[in-house]
């Protein structure tokens, strides 16, 4: 490491061990910093390094493992390392996407925490030159009977809606779980998908010397400066007021910022652009300078400020929202400023790129920080944390899991359970139609939005089943990747790539690190086999309270291309008299199933295995059948198994989703009945096909060595199974739809 000693910035107070500790430096990290700098840091420099070396910014525990993920492919234009990943859609179009967590802020202040999570991920996407066109979110809350759960659900959902609805980007998908494991640490993972032209992608490398460094967007305030670093009275005696560490979002400004940035991006005035996210001005300036191989001189006097008397330390660490940093071509400032002024936004030249290779921060004429850029950007410690692999539980046989008295009665119980009930109460609070391109709305396998002005569509989904991952991190994560793949296939898309949001506990504990490692390994294998690379992602560690970690939760966001939105499938049964064909292998897997959890109140055994070769075969077949218009509805089998999948198709079916019944055909094989109907075997789809096409569909599956059989026939307004009482769809719908609204209205 370059250890160029530099002049110590003026008049900085001495750094005490307490200040070092309160800035989160652990073990030999501070001695390491002293060695690298060759002198004591100023207080501003200490703050800068504390955020640059934080887990959040440096990925110091995860990076060695993330490097093992497959990130390339002919479709990949930009993999991990920029603000978001970019994937080719043909015809000069590309899709830009990423998912990111906002877990801790959302637990402390659910509305603003969730709202600013949405705002942050949208900035990551439009920074790249893309117009955001779809938002998704993956939410994990504590048990319904936990006293904070209702408050958190209410705040998070309205925060996500409040931000996305106002900006005018449709929120089209997501998932929600309730589990005691998240009682004290909820997860809010927000994903944004945008569209751009492949020849107009904007990156963050500040290439060139003497270029203006421009600040646009909202003013800088004291919000978001890390609470721990605010606690140091020695340097902060004037600022008795402790600001909350959660930032406050302003979606109106974000909307204006999107329009202004896209307007300027239509010109050729921008050399590089980066949003100010975590660690605000500090990380955006150092990353841009480092990638461009230049130095940067910042004059903080020119930073637009919301309040008076802010110190250099506060400005460098502020996480005020809705701010961007740009490097412009010289002489283009006036043109750019006019655009931002038109949209009512701040615009200020706050610095210049230099050939010194140093970041020099000046405030009131005094140098507050003077650091070599490569040291700032690349000197964070990298850890190979010790880890112990998770030992997966033994496989349990279906016969060992008690059978229910009635299958259809069990179906009703399960569909009314918090794990499986309708999420309508949530997604109806999100505008999922704004922008006028939503052709498959929420509530199905994947949502589809058109590539505006074309016949192409983007299919988007996010998924993970934490109970599988907890039991077997590698298999569970493989399953999460495969499920997103299946969801994209089920609407007729070509799966292109994923983003991952790795939510885990404390990596300094070997068993948690072991979960992380297993998860990365499972993801890598699935992505490689499915030709479905990782193009962006986010790692959130230390999700634990009082030494108890959350269930390992690697949320996967998948994006696929629909070449022609005239050939898509949805889950609702549309045609009476069709037969339902089940494609995929049946083992009656009840270990870690929702049947086991809901009906027997246990969760044990190995999770269902995923056969990636079968996934590929089944996926290609189903997609081909959709494009040939051989199917009238498609749904994959996931949580709850076959009967749940069929019931969801029935409830979503009919005219305006009024429902369409199904006569279920008795199973005549060797597996126990409850395992057949509720087993969570992977790699399966239910297809509705005209009776005359059923034989061909089954034959084509057999040619691929995939089992296929007819499981029912559509028609009527109820579910029927020989030997059981009918289950009217209206009764089932009432059970399915009522839990969440009732839960949220109870006081």
């Amino acid at each position: 490491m370059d250890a160029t000693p530099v002049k110590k910035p003026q008049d900085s107070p001495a750094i005490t061990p307490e200040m070092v500790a309160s800035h989160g430096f652990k073990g030999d990290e501070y001695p390491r910093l002293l060695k690298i700098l060759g002198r004591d840091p100023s207080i501003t420099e200490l703050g800068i390094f504390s955020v640059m070396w934080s887990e959040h910014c440096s990925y110091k525990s995860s990076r060695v493992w993330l490097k093992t993920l497959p990130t390339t492919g002919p479709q990949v234009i930009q993999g991990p390392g920029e603000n978001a990943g970019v994937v080719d859609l043909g015809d000069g179009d590309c899709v830009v996407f990423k998912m990111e967590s906002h877990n801790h802020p959302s637990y402390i202040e659910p509305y603003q925490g969730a709202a600013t999570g949405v705002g942050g991920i949208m900035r990551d996407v439009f920074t790249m030159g893309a117009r955001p066109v779809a938002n998704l979110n993956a939410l994990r809350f504590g048990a319904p009977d936990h006293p904070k759960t209702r408050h958190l659900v209410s705040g998070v959902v309205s925060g996500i809606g409040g931000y996305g609805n106002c900006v005018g980007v449709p929120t089209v998908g997501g998932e929600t779980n309730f589990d005691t494991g998240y009682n004290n640490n909820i997860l809010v993972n927000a994903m944004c998908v945008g569209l751009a032209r492949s020849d107009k992608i904007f990156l963050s490398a500040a290439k060139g010397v003497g270029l203006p460094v421009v600040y646009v967007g909202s003013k800088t305030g004291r919000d978001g400066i890390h609470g721990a670093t605010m606690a140091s009275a020695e340097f902060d005696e004037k600022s008795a007021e402790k600001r909350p560490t959660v930032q406050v979002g302003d979606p109106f400004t974000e909307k204006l910022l999107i329009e202004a940035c896209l307007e300027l991006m239509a010109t050729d005035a921008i050399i590089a652009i980066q949003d100010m996210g975590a660690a605000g001005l500090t990380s955006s300036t150092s990353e841009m300078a480092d990638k461009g191989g230049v130095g940067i001189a910042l004059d903080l006097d020119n930073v637009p400020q919301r309040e008076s008397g802010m110190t250099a330390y506060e400005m460098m660490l502020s996480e005020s929202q809705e701010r961007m940093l740009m490097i412009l071509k010289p002489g283009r400032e006036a043109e750019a400023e006019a655009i931002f002024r038109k949209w009512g936004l701040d615009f200020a030249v706050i610095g210049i790129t230099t050939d010194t290779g140093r970041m020099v921060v000046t405030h009131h004429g005094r140098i507050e920080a003077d650091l070599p850029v490569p040291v700032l950007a690349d000197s964070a410690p990298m850890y190979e944390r010790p880890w112990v692999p998770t030992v997966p539980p033994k496989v349990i046989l279906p016969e060992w899991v008690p059978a229910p008295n009635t299958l259809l009665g069990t179906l009703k119980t399960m569909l009314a359970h918090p794990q499986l009930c309708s999420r309508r109460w949530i997604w109806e609070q999100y505008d999922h139609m704004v922008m006028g391109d939503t052709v498959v709305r929420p509530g199905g396998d994947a949502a589809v939005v058109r590539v505006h002005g074309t016949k192409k569509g983007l299919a988007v989904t996010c998924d993970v089943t934490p109970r599988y991952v907890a039991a077997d991190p590698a298999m569970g994560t493989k399953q999460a990747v495969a499920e997103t793949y299946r969801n994209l296939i089920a609407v007729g898309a070509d799966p292109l790539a994923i983003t991952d949001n790795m939510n885990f506990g404390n990596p300094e504990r070997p068993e948690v690190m072991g979960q992380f490692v297993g998860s990365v390994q499972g993801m890598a294998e699935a992505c490689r086999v499915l030709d479905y690379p990782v193009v962006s992602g986010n790692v959130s560690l230390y999700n634990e309270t009082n030494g108890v970690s959350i269930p390992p939760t690697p949320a996967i966001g998948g994006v696929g291309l629909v070449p022609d939105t005239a050939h898509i499938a949805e889950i609702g049964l549309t045609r009476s008299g069709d037969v339902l064909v089940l494609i995929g292998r049946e083992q009656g897997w009840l270990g870690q199933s929702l049947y086991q959890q809901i009906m027997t109140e246990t969760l044990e055994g190995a999770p269902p295995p995923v056969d990636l070769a079968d996934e590929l075969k089944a996926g290609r077949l189903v997609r081909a059948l959709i494009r040939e218009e051989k199917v009238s509805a498609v749904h994959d089998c996931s949580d709850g198994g076959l009967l749940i999948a069929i019931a969801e198709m029935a409830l979503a079916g009919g005219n305006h989703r009024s429902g369409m019944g199904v006569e279920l055909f008795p199973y005549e094989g060797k597996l126990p009945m409850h395992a057949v109907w509720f087993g969570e075997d992977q790699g399966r789809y239910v297809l509705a096909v005209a009776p005359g096409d059923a034989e061909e569909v089954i034959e084509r599956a057999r040619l691929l060595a995939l089992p296929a059989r007819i499981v029912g026939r559509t028609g009527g307004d109820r579910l029927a199974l020989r030997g059981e009482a009918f289950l009217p769809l209206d009764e089932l719908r009432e059970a399915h739809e009522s839990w969440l609204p009732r839960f949220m209205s109870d006081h």
Partner: protein
Amino acid sequence: MIRASVIVFPGSNCDRDVKVALEAVTGRPVNMIWHGDAVVPASDLIVLPGGFSYGDYLRCGAMAAHSPIMRDVIAKANAGTPVLGICNGFQILCESGLLPGVLMRNASLRFICRDVWLRVEATDTFFTRAYKPGEVIRVPIAHAEGNYFADPDTLARLEGEKRVAFRYSDQAGNVSTDTCPNGAQHNIAGIVSANRRILGMMPHPERLFESALGGIDGRGVFQSAIESLAAA
């Protein structure tokens, strides 16, 4: 030949959507007019689009009603130019006095985005003549403040003059409190001005104007404008 102008306020977010719908239905390009301009070019109809003008700060539509462009919109509307306000546009029409009443927080206090059924109550207006009286149409809503409120005299006048254009109903056209998604008085989803050329409505007709989006019931609003202009 139809010349339509869509006003773009800071925070409008359905401006493009209604432009796309208008251009598809009329076959003519649409003018996008910035809120800071002083004059709307000569237009056969003006649209105030949905969105969150000025972030809905202060009160929905309150600040947009005082945008520079609104002085000319109001003048042209008073001179007979047809004006369509959708969602936030309806709120702006109320705040600017072009239509009576106000739109309050939904009774549920939540944002609601879903398809609703509307019974067409008046077809002798500029924007509804393509519908049949009593026809039931399906159009999405997406708002947190769509709870229409007016004092009793105003409501009586609106009803007496048959100025309620759309009411929230069920699929069969029955109107009751159960079929009202937001608590609006008299299940009012849209009203027209006394000259029947200004329509404010909370539902978004531009979101269901083509079958690819799942329905075409909203198309009638734009089709009506074409027919009204042709008949003039």
